[in-house]
């Protein structure tokens, strides 16, 4: 689990979320972009939140080397299912996708997309989290749904020693 302190809140990202991004990173020349929703919960005793689930590419989605389009319907249906299974405790908390570069940066298209998601998503949280998974590292941004500001908050290396898991 990684833990990011940001202002007066803490955002935790559970291991399995980073792991799915690591598994889908585009480390071979034919790998396509992948992505999905970030799903999580807000703690009862603070405003801290935990990213603890995700969706990954569905068959309706569009995937190519440099583009990923996540469709609305199938992912919202998954989100609803997870919400019910969690006793109504999980919600939409952002978006992840991969880039075919070692050290990932957002594109103009990415930032426009994130701003639209901040405006148009319907969720309890005031913030959304965006992760881009590069080949050697991943980066995490936080966006405010109140004012649309987006800030880089974390970068992490995947650990290669998976044989112990």
């Amino acid at each position, binding site marked *: 689990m990684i833990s990011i302190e940001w202002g007066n809140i803490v955002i935790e990202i559970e291991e399995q979320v980073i792991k799915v991004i690591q598994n889908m990173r585009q480390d071979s020349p034919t790998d396509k972009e992948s992505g999905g929703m970030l799903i999580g*919960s807000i703690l009862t005793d603070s405003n801290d939140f935990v990213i603890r689930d995700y969706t990954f590419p569905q068959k309706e989605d569009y995937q190519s080397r440099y*583009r*990923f*389009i996540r469709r609305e319907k199938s992912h919202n249906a998954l989100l609803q299912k997870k919400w019910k299974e969690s006793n109504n405790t999980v919600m939409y908390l952002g978006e992840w996708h991969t880039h075919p570069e070692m050290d990932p940066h957002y594109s103009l298209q990415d930032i426009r997309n994130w701003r*639209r998601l901040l405006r148009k998503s319907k969720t309890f949280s005031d913030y959304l989290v965006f992760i881009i998974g590069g080949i050697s590292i991943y980066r995490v941004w936080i966006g405010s749904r109140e004012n649309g500001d987006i800030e880089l908050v974390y970068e992490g290396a995947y650990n290669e020693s998976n044989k112990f898991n």
Partner: protein
Amino acid sequence: MADIQKQFEEFHDAIKLKRFKENEELREKRDIITKKIKKGVKTKFEEMEKDVPSLEFIDQGSYAVDLGIIPEDKDYDIDEGVIFDLYKEDYTDSVELKMIIRDILENHTNTPPKIKNPCVTITYSLDDEPAYHVDLPVYIKSKYDNNLYLAWGKEFSNQDNKHWDLADPEGLNDHIRNSFKDDAKKQFKRVVRYMKKWKDICFNSSGNSRPPSIGLTIAAVDLFSYKQSYNYLSGKFKDDDLGALKDLVSKLKNKFILKWDPDLEKSFYTIEYNLPVQPYSNVFSKMSNNQMDSFYQKLNELENALTEAESKSDPHEACKVLSPKYFGDKFPIPESKEARYQQVALSSAPSSNSAKGD
């Protein structure tokens, strides 16, 4: 897979018995008794107009090897060996010296001392409840070798049941103390204490239905292996007590053999484990076939519970499998994951369109 290492370590802190070094009260009790024995032996031998033998004392049992747990019934148990610098060839009656010890401590406590087969037992009471007992095994030397011999027998036993038995209390302490090092040793101690607590919780305390602690300890010295788990995000290893305990339980289970009992016309799982030092006797010899079989079944249940706990993703669920059924209520159960989270209305998001750009 739930990570409940923190809960295991909290549980360990709650059941661990401090060593003599850290436990002044018990240390004082021990020192009062050893002083009294030294003085009393001097007086007795002078009265008998014999040379006063020198005495040595040896800490034994779980205190000596730092594997004690706080007893369920609050009846603390101290084992302190008394070694007389005398020769067994001069003391054909093995109970004679035990009677001297008994007489010395006769009025030391409200409950009179008792001569048992392997030792003299002193019982301290608190409000008429036993609060401590001190077991004093008595040893003697031989003219012909460097071994110690344990005084076996009760006051009115017939001659066949009184004898000097070859023993190596120091060797046993060393065997256990020197078995592991550093972090492996720390985990070994924790895992032995988990097994002892499990024994207290899951076995009837009457007679020999419980496997003896020394048996569990000797088996653990032989079978334990240090386990860590790897966290791929932090890139660090950390101790995995659940894994180590499960591994030990499963190896111990495999030491049982199925034996046919012709009298009862039934098969039983039985186990033998020999002391690693003199007299190399089977530490489970007092258990009947039925008791050993039930020991096996209980190990099997414990192994299943540990496997189930390991498979749960929520630490709350994992700990609920183990506590209180297998380890008692000292094993903590963290709050359920779901209870930590606010309930919210159904959320949704529009489609998402990302691109690496040009």
